């Protein structure tokens, strides 16, 4: 029983890592399901049971995290950053960003914080808010 859970976890983590690597690509559930050796019909349910959110939501947060980094650290336009992070339109980007972060991309940039020498993975984790926590309320 336990070994089966471990194997399933590891395969799903492999799929999640693939999303992390190619966050700007469209969500390809069939490909991720194949990578995890899980049927397409079960993949989303198992991903959610393992990581607490759907693959779609995970990818949204990953993209928004990268967008936050680019807004803080670069002078690139919001439109450029929208495209760079895989959003199909500026409207979707702005709406998703505001829903997750609590402010618009432009407001976030205007209130940008100074960068830190924190490894990227931690910046990703801390700036990728959960449903119950927003970075705008922190610091």
């Amino acid at each position, binding site marked *: 029983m336990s070994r089966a*859970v471990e194997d399933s*976890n590891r395969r799903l983590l*492999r799929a999640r890592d693939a999303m*992390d*690597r190619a966050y700007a690509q469209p969500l390809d559930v069939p490909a991720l399901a194949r990578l995890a050796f899980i049927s397409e019909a079960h993949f989303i349910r198992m991903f959610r049971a393992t*990581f607490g959110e759907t693959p779609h939501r995970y990818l949204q947060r990953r993209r928004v995290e990268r967008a936050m980094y680019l807004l803080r*650290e670069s002078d690139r336009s919001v439109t450029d950053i929208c495209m760079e992070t895989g959003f199909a339109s500026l409207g979707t980007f702005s709406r998703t960003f505001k829903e997750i972060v609590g402010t618009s991309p432009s407001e976030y940039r205007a209130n940008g914080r100074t960068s830190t020498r924190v*490894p*990227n*993975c931690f910046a990703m984790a801390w700036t990728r808010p959960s449903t119950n926590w927003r970075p705008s309320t922190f610091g």
Partner: protein
Amino acid sequence: MSMFNAITLSGVFVLDQDEALEFYVGKLGMVVKDDVDLGFMRWLTVQVPGDDDRAILLERPGPPTMDDASAEKVRELVTKGATGLALGLTTSDCRKTYETLKARGVEFSQEPTENSYGIDCGARDPFGNHIRIVQLPTSG
């Protein structure tokens, strides 16, 4: 003045010590520092060649340090990547190291990316532990 002199040993939970050796030594190129049968556990440490002051304990979760139920939980967390950062390694060439390790079959969660602190990438050990490989600006 600090009470401590250095960090010399840190631990990583691994699900199988032989498989861990294949990865940490066979793929990452570390060397075994200690491999001792203590009776109640196998004391297995590895280190970066030449970096004699710091070792990593490759520890298998389970009795006697924890009960079976706890070990099962640890294993589940490790395999879903939920145990946080296991190791941070530095390299003089992140992209080259990435290509070398990728050719050896190492799994990555992130390709080399430029950041304010240098270039880094994220790798996984066979069990799900997260390893960062960083090229600091001064080490390039």
